[in-house]
């Protein structure tokens, strides 16, 4: 049940997993400045999970952790939206106040400053957390139940790479 690829693949995975996750976090945090955002960054982080599944064949016993992370991300997203209920739901109550993510943007083209955006940046972060956990969960459940991880037990070595 718990099969893994050769040592070369596992070492390359250990090296590549760090820039992949860092690039995903960069896409999430710069969602209000550059192309990208919560959904795309979450998909990049989930692709690192796909790499882990392909090379190691398992994620351990982290399914409940991923479920909890996804639910927490969605709940925090709804809470951040709900705190603006004094005006309307999804009101941007942090923009331009000078607090966290409350900087002001100069009018017209500018290079972009990370401390702006108000609730948009926070919602990007929450959606990134939710999407990364959700896609990791989908990938893991489908790869576990479709029999890919049992390929070695049944004698077919089509998925295994000889080191």
């Amino acid at each position: 049940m718990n099969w893994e690829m050769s040592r070369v693949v596992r070492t390359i995975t250990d090296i590549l997993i760090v820039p992949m996750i860092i690039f995903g976090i960069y896409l999430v945090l710069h969602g209000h400045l550059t192309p990208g955002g919560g959904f795309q960054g979450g998909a990049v982080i989930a692709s690192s999970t796909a790499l882990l599944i392909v090379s190691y064949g398992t994620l351990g016993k982290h399914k409940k952790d991923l479920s909890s992370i996804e639910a927490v991300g969605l709940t925090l997203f709804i809470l951040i939206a709900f705190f603006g209920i004094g005006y309307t739901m999804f009101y941007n109550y942090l923009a331009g106040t000078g607090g966290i993510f409350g900087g002001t943007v100069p009018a017209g083209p500018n290079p972009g400053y990370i401390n702006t955006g108000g609730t948009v940046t926070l919602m990007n972060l929450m959606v990134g957390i939710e999407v990364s956990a959700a896609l990791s969960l989908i990938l893991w459940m489908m790869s576990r139940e479709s029999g890919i991880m049992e390929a070695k037990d049944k004698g077919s070595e089509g998925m295994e790479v000889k080191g």
Partner: protein
Amino acid sequence: MKKSIAIVAFVVIFAFLVLGVVQMRPFGEPENEDMDDHFLGDSQERHQVNNVVTAVLFDYRGLDTLGEATILFSAVSGVLTVLRKIKDEKEEVED
């Protein structure tokens, strides 16, 4: 019989699509753009966001994004339910 119905449906829908393309406005010259021009002018001074698509996604049309996140959540719940049930059945058979 069933295949002939499918062929007729395909031809009719294809004809409607081609008819729609012939009568479509030219590419790159939209007509009703007042709302988008308002978004473009408003997103920097009122929401302090550089990326207008993100501003539309999370501020002006935030409820759409809430529904989208809910759909993703329920789809993951459906995947978990469907695949977990199969595993339980298999374990029952093994027992």
